[in-house]
């Protein structure tokens, strides 16, 4: 009985111990609840929201680019695409097959679709085909019963109405690449495109706008349950360019099959009215993405459609440089308006013979005539008297040898040599013969077509250091550009020479003169060799340009302005392997004539 009593006491004692242990274990549970639900509550609330809220960026419409008259040069076009929602079709393959009967899909496309379908959850729409035409949309809708799970979705894609005509300054947009600076969460949005070249790249920040936010509640499988909050983005700014789309189109077309560049500037404001580099690419195609083959074709084309020749092409200015040489000589007093040279067709310096383009020479000739006839001998002699440094100094005043910095990529600076440059570059002293060929814009000198346009504008406006710009100048007034320290009388002599080039019989561009209600063009042609003519060839007769392969033909240049008496438009034209200066002069004439016509039609009625 005692033992039984003990047994009962042990049970009670030990049970109480057990009870206390259980109580303590419940305290542990409560402590843990406190730790998680009070002490760490904020952390877990954040994590729960991260689970539940999916924030999506809303892509704002990209800013529209307009020309000076409000014509759209780059805009956003509705893009209809066919999407497939896998969970809405009983059989993905059957639906795809039915789709293929309506619209063929390449094997690569089909493979990508299947990969995307596998990668995404079954309620995520996968793109089947985009850029659908109205007919294609109609076909899909007509066959909708056979196409379960196919939906048509509307988005925006960049569209360039003028296609390749504006390509080299507008540029294009394309998908964000690994090298792009990801300073904006928008860049992480799949399919988002940014400016990769031209104005699209230059004004990327303004054009892009600001992304909106869409906060969605999603479940564990990513399915959208409801919209929590929507903050609309800010559309990109509109950009108004100085370009005149009609002049631009005319300028582009006037090249035909030729490869080259043309720039038209307003000589007072510096506004770029036309900016052509031919041939060009289609920015619509590049924005949508081209295949490797198409890209290869573009990049291997001998006429370099991907290169912006107006800005990245460096060419000897040839005779278009003679105005600079003449002005330097007149200003320094090396020659006067009355100074004459005798051109016998060649000139001997040391053991070198320097030829004029005209075999039998021009006879006695002054500076205005030398410009009109583009006499080389006159400029050899002038350059000899002047020295390279004076020439280089004047060239720089006219904007040659340095970048114009209009913001487009891959601009080249060109090259204006002087004695110091030669010493640094080659460790050699400057040779007189090098001054001679510099006098006719050959030798080391390199310029870009844009620089030549700036040079011409500065001559045309009477010596104001106008700077080119792509932005529309709204004031319409002449801007406060610095006036060069050049005697007006000398400037007039040069302009007289340029007038005679085009409008006086015997001038090198007389055949390309224009007359629009009495408004005429002044200008200067240039022809530069891309090959060396040997002594032997000179003796046996120089090969005709037409007999040479395209790549070996001369480059043709023309710079000009109009109207001759009250200049408004300056043009620079380069035609690669265009044989002779008149090829460029013809194009330049057409462009300036169009500019004059457009000017007349846009004048307000009085």
């Amino acid at each position, binding site marked *: 009985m005692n033992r039984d009593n003990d047994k009962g006491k042990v049970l009670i004692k030990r*049970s109480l111990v057990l*009870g206390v242990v259980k109580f303590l*274990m419940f305290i542990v*549970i*409560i402590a843990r*609840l406190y730790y998680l639900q009070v002490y*760490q509550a904020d952390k877990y*609330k954040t994590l729960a929201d991260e689970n539940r809220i999916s924030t999506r960026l809303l892509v704002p419409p990209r800013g529209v680019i307009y020309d000076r008259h409000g014509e759209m040069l780059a805009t956003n076009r509705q893009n209809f695409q066919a999407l497939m929602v896998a969970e809405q079709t009983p059989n993905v393959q059957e639906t795809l097959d039915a789709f293929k009967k309506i619209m063929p899909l390449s094997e690569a496309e089909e493979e990508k679709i299947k990969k995307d379908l596998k990668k995404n959850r079954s309620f995520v729409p996968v793109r089947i085909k985009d850029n659908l035409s109205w007919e294609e949309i109609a076909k899909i809708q007509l066959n909708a019963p056979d196409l379960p799970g196919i939906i048509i979705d509307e988005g925006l894609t960049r569209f360039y109405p003028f296609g390749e005509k504006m390509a080299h300054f507008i540029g294009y947009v394309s998908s964000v690449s690994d090298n792009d600076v990801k300073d904006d969460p928008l860049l992480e949005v799949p399919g988002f495109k940014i400016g990769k070249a031209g104005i699209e790249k230059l004004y990327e920040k303004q054009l892009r706008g600001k992304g909106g936010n869409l906060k969605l509640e999603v479940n564990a499988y990513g399915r959208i349950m409801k919209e929590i909050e929507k903050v609309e983005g800010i559309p990109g700014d509109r950009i108004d360019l100085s370009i005149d789309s009609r002049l631009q189109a005319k300028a582009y077309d006037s090249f035909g099959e030729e490869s080259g560049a043309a720039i038209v500037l307003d000589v007072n404001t510096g506004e770029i009215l036309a900016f052509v580099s031919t041939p060009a690419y289609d920015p619509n195609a590049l924005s949508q993405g081209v295949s490797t083959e198409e890209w290869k074709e573009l990049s291997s084309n001998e006429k370099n459609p991907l290169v912006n020749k107006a800005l990245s092409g460096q060419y000897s200015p040839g005779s278009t440089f003679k105005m600079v040489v003449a002005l330097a000589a007149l200003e320094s007093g090396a020659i006067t308006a009355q100074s004459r040279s005798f051109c016998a067709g060649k000139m001997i310096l040391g053991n070198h013979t320097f030829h004029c383009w005209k075999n039998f020479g021009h006879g006695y000739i002054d500076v205005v005539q030398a410009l009109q006839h583009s006499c080389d001998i006159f400029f050899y002699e002038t350059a000899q008297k002047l020295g390279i440094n004076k020439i280089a100094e004047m060239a720089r005043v006219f904007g040659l040898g340095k970048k114009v910095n209009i913001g487009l990529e891959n601009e080249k600076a060109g090259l204006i040599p002087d004695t110091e440059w030669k010493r640094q570059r080659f460790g050699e002293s400057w040779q007189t013969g090098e001054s001679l060929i510099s006098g006719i814009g050959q030798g080391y000198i390199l310029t870009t077509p844009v620089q030549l346009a700036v040079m011409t504008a500065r001559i045309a406006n009477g010596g104001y250091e106008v700077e080119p710009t792509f932005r529309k100048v709204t004031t319409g007034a002449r801007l406060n550009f610095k006036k060069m320290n050049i005697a007006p009388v000398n400037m007039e002599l040069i302009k007289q020479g340029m007038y005679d080039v085009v409008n006086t019989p015997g001038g090198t561009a007389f055949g390309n003169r224009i007359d629009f209600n009495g408004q005429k063009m002044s200008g200067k042609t240039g022809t530069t060799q891309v090959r060396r003519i040997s002594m032997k060839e000179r003796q046996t007769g120089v090969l005709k340009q037409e007999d040479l392969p395209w790549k070996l033909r001369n480059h043709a240049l023309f710079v000009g302005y109009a109207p001759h008496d009250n200049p408004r438009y300056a043009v620079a034209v380069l035609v690669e392997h265009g044989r002779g200066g008149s090829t460029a002069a013809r194009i330049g004439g057409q462009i300036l004539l169009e500019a004059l016509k457009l000017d007349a039609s846009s004048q307000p009625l009085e």
Partner: protein
Amino acid sequence: MYKSYETSIKNQAMTLREKIASISFSYVMFILILAGIGVTMLYSAANGSWSPWALNQLLRFGLGFAVMVVFALTDIRVFMRYAYIFYFIALVLLIIVEVSGHIGMGAQRWINLGFMKLQPSELMKIALVLALARYFHSSSLQAIESIRGIIIPTLMVFFPALLVMTQPDLGTALMLVFTAGAMFFAVGVQLWKFGVLILGAIVSMPIAWHFLHDYQQNRVLTFLNPERDPLGAGYHIIQSKIALGSGGMFGKGFLKGTQSHLNFLPEKHTDFIFTMLSEEFGMIGAVFVVIINFLIIAYSYSFALKSTSYFGKLAAIGLATNFFFYVFINMAMVLGLIPVVGIPLPLISYGGTVILSVMAGFGIILSVHINRNINIGKD
């Protein structure tokens, strides 16, 4: 002898009305509260719908309640008399499940009764407690304190635990062992024997590790480092902690638990229902549930202490301990304190067998209370 006979006669003579009158009203209230919370949470788990869980649970609880009342009104000596038979039936059912699992379509834990699936392991939880209570009731303290005296009860634990373990159901096997262990402790088995057992367990752990199934090994490894596999096994624990923590002090509100309703929380209607409750009703709600559970256990203890029979005392303590392990293991598991072992929260988690076994247990505890004055002899 005479006196005890007198008492037992007197108690035997208790009318049904008297028995019903002496059912602890508070105890039943706590049970009803828990069941009510359970049905409410299942309603929420189905996004505010009675189907598929809440109504079913209510019906099962009704059945369980009936079982509880019947057991409560049953004479305590009946449980003692049939304790071993009950134990053998449960053991045979476990063996049947085991054998049919081997012959049939893979692992199986239940026997289909048509209207419900009976898990013999749940029966065994009650049966083992009753069988051990009867065994120790008949033992002397000397026998309990001797090694020979605890060989038989040890085997009584060992066989069902082994069978359940191979089902495989590690959680239930552990519960059987823990509950039995607590009873061994309560009756006075010396602490050093537990020390030897635990030591032996630690030594044999590497061997036991090899017997664990891959998914069980994974659960342990994942518990030790949940970030090991954030999308796989660790996902449950991580999402459970996020749900709990984000509930904060006052919760997100009924039907407003984002983790639960957006399906980030797995098994929200079964093992992780306490998480969902804590998300929607915060720490206040969670602590309330803890307190109700604690009160049920505390009342069970007081019933045990008031009972004059050793069998009644030990049975009530064993059943209360069994209930405690359900609650503690489930809560500790969803709170990330122990590995996920798949133990439901009784009366709140969805599941029929658990309701029946727990309610049967409550019925027996109530019977201990009602029959507290019946003194049972050693045989």
